């Protein structure tokens, strides 16, 4: 009788332990995507007024430009062509991507090819440049950014432009956003240079065959890190 009672006590203790410990274990063992500080970008605040409150000029010189149609420069864009992330074993070609008719971003057909958002800045130029890549494909398997959510901060990212030079960036932050809540500053055209690598992650909706979130790695030019 006594033995039965102590066995019952033991069962109570064991089940309480299981009920408490398993949720804790699950939370702790989940992959932690968010890390680091997102580097700032975006336009500088507006300049001080030209006239002060007494109506006196505060500006020594006003910037002036020729507005003649024939004086306007037409710039030739030199797109990025190759992406290297040694820590992930990534050495992929980059193609320019735009916008689909329904408004979503174009994604390269080949899952081993990355895409540069051609309407945003060039990697290394002012503003927030974006390179996107597949995490995977049902048909083609793992994509170029399959391991992106595990890229350690401080790792090097190389982007080669079509005319030769490779610019190096350093990963400084990882973030995780619901797909319809991407921050607007990802598309900033002004401010300090910043590179973002974007792919999919989070839960997977089997019916829509789509992930619920985007994984974003933020990087800054190597000299600044």
């Amino acid at each position, binding site marked *: *009788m006594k033995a039965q009672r102590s066995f019952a006590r033991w069962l109570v203790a064991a089940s309480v332990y299981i009920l408490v410990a398993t949720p804790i274990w699950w939370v702790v063992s989940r992959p932690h995507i968010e890390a680091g500080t997102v580097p700032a970008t975006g336009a500088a605040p507006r300049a001080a007024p030209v*006239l002060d409150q007494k109506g006196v000029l505060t500006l020594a010189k006003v910037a002036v430009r020729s507005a003649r149609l*024939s004086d306007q420069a037409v710039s030739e864009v030199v797109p990025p062509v190759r992406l290297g992330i040694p820590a992930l074993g990534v050495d992929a070609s980059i193609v320019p991507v735009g916008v689909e008719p329904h408004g979503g971003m174009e994604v390269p057909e080949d899952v081993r090819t990355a895409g540069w958002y051609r309407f945003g800045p060039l990697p290394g130029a002012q503003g927030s440049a974006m390179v996107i890549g597949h995490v995977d494909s049902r048909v083609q398997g793992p994509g170029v950014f399959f391991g992106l959510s595990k890229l350690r901060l401080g790792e090097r990212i190389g982007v080669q432009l079509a005319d030769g030079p490779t610019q190096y960036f350093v990963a400084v932050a990882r973030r995780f956003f619901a797909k319809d809540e991407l921050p607007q500053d990802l598309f900033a055209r002004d401010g300090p240079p910043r590179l973002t690598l974007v792919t999919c992650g989070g839960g997977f909706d089997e019916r829509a065959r789509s992930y619920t979130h985007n994984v974003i790695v933020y990087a800054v030019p190597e000299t600044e890190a």
Partner: protein
Amino acid sequence: MRKVLSLLTSFLLVVIPAGGSLAKAKASSAVTIVHGLPRFTADVYVNGELLLSGFKAESTTDPLTLEEGEYDVAIRNVGSAPDSEPALQDVITLGPGLNVSVVAHLDETGTPALTVFDNDLSQIPAGESRLVMRHQAAAPAVDVMSDGETLLAEVASGAEAETNLAVATHEVAVALAGGGEEIVDPTALQFDEGAAQVLYLIGSAEEDTLDLMVQTVSGLQSAPAGVATGDGGLAESPGFPLWVAILMVGAAVVLVASSVRLRKERTRG
């Protein structure tokens, strides 16, 4: 009660003036000055202060920050005495938080005039650019062509028209409305995403000084609707595993059963 009242009074005394002064703080606007008077080099005065000296025809300033209010704008021939009769003078009223262009130009009769345009800051869909045409010349109505096709038809002197177009370098030209004579030859102009190219037709048909000026208004881009980069599901974050759930349900059942058993025994014993 007294204490509450005095607290309330001091609160009102402190908060209301603060709120009042906040409401009075002036909001600023961005102002671009566009010089569309042909063959004229100008000195530009704002409220009697010389803002710009030797401002050449067919140039613009970068956007200047001005607080809301009324401004007296006077334009004189370069080097003229500050108290001499201006070639052009007007008072412009500036509201808060705007982006405006102040254009010195010839009106349809060939008389110098100052016109203020409110620049359209509405967002442009991702992947597109915008063309704005402002007819600011002493000339008949015109059509605006892009790559040989009419993009905007029948824009009369003083009028403004706009349309969105694909991001690219387009050959822009202006001809008299209705398939008339070409006024400005096709010229390559780059249309960037999320930026408006504002064209000004300036000058005079009679004096053969018609030309196109360009001002770029940027920062109107919108973001793509989303980035969908996977349909495989291989990289899915682990959800709550089924075996753990079964284990926990099992543990809960055992817990209830054993405690019931223990209680029964206790009451019996």
